[in-house]
């Protein structure tokens, strides 16, 4: 943590001080915060109390961070089962914000924030943006959707807290995004990687060369992306592309971020205690081993999370980062252990597609979801087997069926999917079970 390390080209920003805390002090801080957060979760949330009582573990049993593995896990299903506010530890009158993300059964996952939680969230976004090289003076375009999605408002308040000039374009209307980027002299942007690549292509079509604009910092997240996509973006612009990680259940974007070294994501572990556990047994794994990422929130008031299983698969990077930050790094998330997939920043479960198909056909359809990447934009094709029951001699009826299925999927997911009718038994099955998802997107 020498001054010359801190004083990189961009200079040290005081908001990042905790990123450089020496490890023993950081562990001590984590333990104290863990203890008080656990006590509060136990006292205020029935589910946590019940789970811990079942295991015979009390908040005071957490004497060191090694004891964390004695605590029960929390799953996404727990949020669904307690919908909407069952895991809140604060009364609603102290909750100043609600956000939600799509779930498997139509009911969303709901999260709440107290005023303190919003401040913590903004602080980790500030630290993320600073790590990526943003500073006051930047003109920042926020293309994340403003609304229930955590991305838009999360980035917005963090950016204001940092003191950059926010251009809150929200999602969509690509031509206007390009016009404002050019006219306002935007220097930093947050986007899903696939949307940004779409924006790049559109810019070329309307004769705007992003290399001639002052855009220098790109922050990309909310969906998995690859080094190939980073190269694609960086070769067509003058910006550096950084990965930002987060999840609604923990706080939203800002759980971990890449620094300008672009070599793994720093986890803001003074607020989010990370573990890597074995996918099957749930046992903690040694540093460096690949497994499922699990988070406990250390300071969240409205909705503390105890050992939340993210289903994201990664590993800790054991070496110290060249940027000098002491908080741990993880490799970028390449895959997930459950069946959820992310398309253009939207969480999608095969079961949602199934529900949409069922609503149209009235019979159990055999279907398969094929994900591809066309010019870096995610494409969804849903292949549906035509059963003798729904087959009709009239081409018009088949066209209608295709269109209806497409609309049903678009209504459910909010994204367009190409529907392709295929012959009975055309789709691969293994041991009688259809393979629901074929992801061909790896770059």
């Amino acid at each position, binding site marked *: 943590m020498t001054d010359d390390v801190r004083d990189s080209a961009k200079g040290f920003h005081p908001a990042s001080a905790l990123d450089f805390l020496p490890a023993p002090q950081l562990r001590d801080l984590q333990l104290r915060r863990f203890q008080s957060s656990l006590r509060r979760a136990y006292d205020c949330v029935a589910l946590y109390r019940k789970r811990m009582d079942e295991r015979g573990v009390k908040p005071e049993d957490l004497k060191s961070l090694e004891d964390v593995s004695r605590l029960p896990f929390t799953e996404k299903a727990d949020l669904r089962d307690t919908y909407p506010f069952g895991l809140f530890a604060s009364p609603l009158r102290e909750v100043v914000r609600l956000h939600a993300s799509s779930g498997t059964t139509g009911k969303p996952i709901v999260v709440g924030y107290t005023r303190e939680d919003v401040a913590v969230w903004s602080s980790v976004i500030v630290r993320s943006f600073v790590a990526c090289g943003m500073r006051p003076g930047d003109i920042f375009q926020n293309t994340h959707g403003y609304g229930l999605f955590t991305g838009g408002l999360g980035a917005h308040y963090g950016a204001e807290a940092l003191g950059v000039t926010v251009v809150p374009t929200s999602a969509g209307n690509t031509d206007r995004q390009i016009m404002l980027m050019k006219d306002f002299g935007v220097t930093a942007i947050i986007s899903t990687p696939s949307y940004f690549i779409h924006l790049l292509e559109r810019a070329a079509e309307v004769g705007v060369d992003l290399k001639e604009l002052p855009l220098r910092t790109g922050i990309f997240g909310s969906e998995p992306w690859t080094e190939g996509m980073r190269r694609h973006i960086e070769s067509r612009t003058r910006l550096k592309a950084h990965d930002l990680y987060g999840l609604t259940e923990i706080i939203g974007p800002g759980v971990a971020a890449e620094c300008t070294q672009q070599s793994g994501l720093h986890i803001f572990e003074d607020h989010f205690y990370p573990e890597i556990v074995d996918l099957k047994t749930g046992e903690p794994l040694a540093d460096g081993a690949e497994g499922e990422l699990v988070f406990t929130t250390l300071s969240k008031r409205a909705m503390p999370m105890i050992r939340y299983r993210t289903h994201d698969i990664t590993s800790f990077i054991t070496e110290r980062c060249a940027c000098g930050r002491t908080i741990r790094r993880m490799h970028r998330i390449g895959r997930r252990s459950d069946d959820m997939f992310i398309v253009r920043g939207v969480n999608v479960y095969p079961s949602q597609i199934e529900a949409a198909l069922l609503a149209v056909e009235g019979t159990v359809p055999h279907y398969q979801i094929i994900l591809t990447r066309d010019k870096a934009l995610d494409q969804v094709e849903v292949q549906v087997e*035509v*059963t*003798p029951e729904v*087959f*009709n*001699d*009239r*081409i018009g009826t*088949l*066209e209608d069926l295709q269109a209806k299925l497409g609309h049903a999927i678009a209504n459910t997911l909010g994204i367009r999917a190409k529907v*392709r*009718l*295929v*012959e*009975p*038994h*055309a789709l691969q099955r293994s041991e009688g079970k259809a393979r629901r998802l074929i992801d061909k997107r790896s770059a």
Partner: protein
Amino acid sequence: MHIQQISVFLENRKGRLAEMTQLLAENKINIRAVSLADMADLGVLRLIVNDPKRCLSVLKANDFAAQATDVFAVELPDRPGALHNVLEVLNANGLNVEYMYASVGKVDTGVVIFKVDPVDEAVAVLRRNGISVLSGDAAPIP
């Protein structure tokens, strides 16, 4: 009695049509008329065969989505206006042709297969107007 047309759902991919015709050939099913209606990724093959009932069961047993549809066939003399004559009669009686396709008939005639709803009414109207509609009982198409 009407002619039973067999319609088969086919994906638009290489070799698929040949797989189906092979299946019919192996089962000694004779195709007398054929038409393919196609969209971008799929097609519906419509067949007039010597044994529609067996054809349907062979196809279904081999995982094809197939169904039988009532159509009728008209034998037309090989001269200008012959097809128009039929369509004029149907039109004058408010009957809409959903689709039609042609096959060769005997010397100097052609055979056109019509899908019209309702089929009974269409056949009756045509016969009243002196147009020869082939019976489904006799081998409809030579």
